[in-house]
């Protein structure tokens, strides 16, 4: 069986927006998106001691290789990085197109995603990728198992849990509650360098430059500004009727 895990290299520390491009400044240090670690961990648990292959796939700048190496250090078998200057500024449409092309190449039985990315705070990528791959998608998996060619998921929603099944091949995104990602062992870190790792460009995937990056994106950032100030902040001091004042305030804000 082959499991592909999509991961992202995200800016580390306090993020900054580049006022020129109005996009996230990705020039500084980066790290593996913490939520993707849950997806890698889940793939490794499913693999166990079997000869299931776990491939990590990422689209990003060259230094995204660092995050892929961390995934290899955790125990993934192979890494694929899609990198190309034309990719900068890709939105969901462009990104999902590229990832789908890379995943088509892999033909994995199961494709895993983490619950969100800490830079875009988006929880939207997997459904778009699944649509392009024309595979069933299940999100927010709090528990996951595979038996007889079927993936069995306990999916967390606002109302409780749905128990959902789908025949493989399928796409699943895991919630951060599903597991506690392992620390790479020292042997794992040292062995990561020797594991196979490939770099693909757009032409390797057969995707035209015009379909990606700013040119291929269907959305754009028009302007950056400050959010409206908190408005009339009020302060009450030494008021014997503070409790009533709070109730009045909450009522005024239509919170009660």
């Amino acid at each position, binding site marked *: 069986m082959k499991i592909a895990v999509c991961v992202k290299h995200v800016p580390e520390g306090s993020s900054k927006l580049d006022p020129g491009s109005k996009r996230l400044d990705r020039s*500084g240090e980066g790290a593996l998106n913490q939520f993707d670690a849950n997806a890698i961990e889940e793939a490794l648990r499913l693999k166990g001691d079997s000869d299931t292959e776990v491939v990590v796939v990422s689209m990003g700048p060259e230094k995204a290789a660092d995050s892929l190496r961390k995934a290899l250090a955790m125990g993934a078998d192979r890494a694929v990085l899609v990198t190309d200057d034309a990719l900068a500024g890709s939105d969901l449409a462009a990104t999902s197109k590229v990832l789908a092309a890379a995943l088509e190449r892999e033909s994995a039985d199961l494709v895993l995603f983490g619950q969100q990315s800490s830079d875009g705070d988006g929880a939207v990528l997997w459904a778009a990728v699944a649509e392009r791959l024309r595979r069933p998608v299940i999100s927010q998996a709090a528990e996951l198992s595979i038996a007889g060619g079927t993936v069995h998921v306990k999916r967390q929603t606002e109302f409780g849990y749905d128990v959902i099944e789908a025949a493989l091949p399928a796409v699943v995104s895991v919630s951060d509650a599903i597991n*506690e990602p*392992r620390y790479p*062992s*020292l042997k794992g870190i040292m062995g990561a360098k020797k594991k196979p790792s490939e770099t693909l460009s757009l032409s390797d995937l057969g995707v035209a430059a015009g379909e990606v990056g700013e040119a291929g994106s269907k959305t754009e950032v028009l302007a950056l500004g400050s959010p409206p100030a908190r408005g009339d902040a009020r302060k009450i001091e030494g008021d014997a009727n503070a409790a009533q004042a709070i109730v009045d305030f909450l009522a005024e804000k239509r919170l009660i």
Partner: protein
Amino acid sequence: MTVRASDYPPPFSASEFVAEPTDPADERIEVGILIVGAGPAGLACAVRLGQLLEEHPDVADRLGEVPVALVEKGKQPGSHLLSGAVVNPRSLRRLFRDRYHVEDIPGYGAVHGEAVYVLTRRAAVRIPPPPTMRNHGNVVFSLSQLGRWLGERAEEGGTMILPETAAEKLLVSHGRVVGVRTGDKGRDREGGPMGNYEPGADLVAKVTVLAEGTQGHLTGVALDHFGLRGGEPQVWELGVKEIWKVARPLRNVVHTMGWPLRTAAKYREFGGSFLYPMGDDMLTIGMVVGLDYRDVELSPHDLLQELKTHPKIRKLLEGGERIGWGAKTIPSGGFHSLPKRLHAPGLLLCGDGVGMVNIARLKGVHYAIESGRLAAESAFASLQPGATPAAALGSYDAAVRDSFIWRDLEEVRDMRQVFGRGFVVGGALATAMTASRGKINLGKLPAEHDAEQPLLRTDRASRYPIPDGKLTFDKLSSVFASGNKTRDDQPNHIRIERRVPLEVVEMWVNMCPAQVYEIGTEGGDGTATVQLAPSNCVQCGAITAKGGRLTPPEGGSGPEYTLT
């Protein structure tokens, strides 16, 4: 009754951190040469080894799959590095020869001009820079950035860098250092294993180079285990600094003395401040204070905040924004505190870990780099066919003693003690000593451990500024600005006596720039318990100087410095 922190030593013994390898032989990780610490010393050692192994592939072959490995407890090289720094470039030139020039290294350029001021609360009197503070020819760097760059060069040369890995124990077998045991990961607050518990591993090597920096954990353990401690106890300064984005560039390298430190001898407040330009739109400002101070209410963190309220300094920062903060100790005992020997069987010791710092000039980076380079040469020599390891490693000592490291440190050997006599007398003596190149000196004054200073109390804390969140900040904001996001449920990594006189707890509370310590419950008999928030810790090392003991927490924890 005089209260001294040293009367309440922490529950710590070096022997706890010395062990034989315990992993089964086929699970031990074998490397050729193991370096601990991705600071200037460790990285210089790695770079030099890369050069030597490239020239001698036959030696490289005999070192196995991983000829050189470097373990670093921070997230990456640079995460735990902090200094001023105005660096003497001679060591970088010796290390790289014509492969790279100093101009190729990311930095902030040569020093243009210097200014030294003596500060009072409202005024600043400019004085000619004393001979110890002339920086012509030196270059401003961010040590954290320099570490990142050196890390890339080390990896290019073939070193395998293993970040987020703490070296917890020294592996010693038959009296010989054979490597280190790395720290466990995934333990909870009580030390029990969590779901993702990952035990440490025995990392064995033919030669181990300890380049852990100030308060180096295994360095301290090794000095005790092998009986290498020098004549005088080591003493430390605590440096606290900030990086600011500024509206107008700073032109000069600035040093100040005097306010807000008190000059009377009884306070023993030795130190000063520095401001270094970092390009046109940034600068770094820091405060350095000797940890032999006596006032329970002295807070180095808050002294820096107070410093910024000086009219001259406030003006420099106007319109600017704080973008980074950090703290780290500096060993200041100098020549007299160096260990008796810098090597032991299978072991070499470098850099700040053994105190190679010229505190009068606030310089240590270039000594660290040179010591790392010399350690590489000795380690390499010890691996040649027919070499006697003991003689080869011993050659490191000889090389260091022949180098400018030894010469410089010897020249300023009594500088620090002199300032124990107070600023005015001390200043005059220091100038006389430097001008005479060390020929005028006072013989050795009795030196004490920082923790042995008798504590006194003033109302110093009443003068610290109330943080306004724009110019001045509180400790938790500073911890945030260091990039520290250590998980809270880690085991406590600080060894400390938990019930001590109230003055001692108060001293620790004020001393720590990261708000790790708090007064717990008061005993009613003048004692109190100490409460800790270890995840705030930025691993500056001050606690080890003042009565506790810092050990490395889980690899990857602590600050994530980028510009310090």
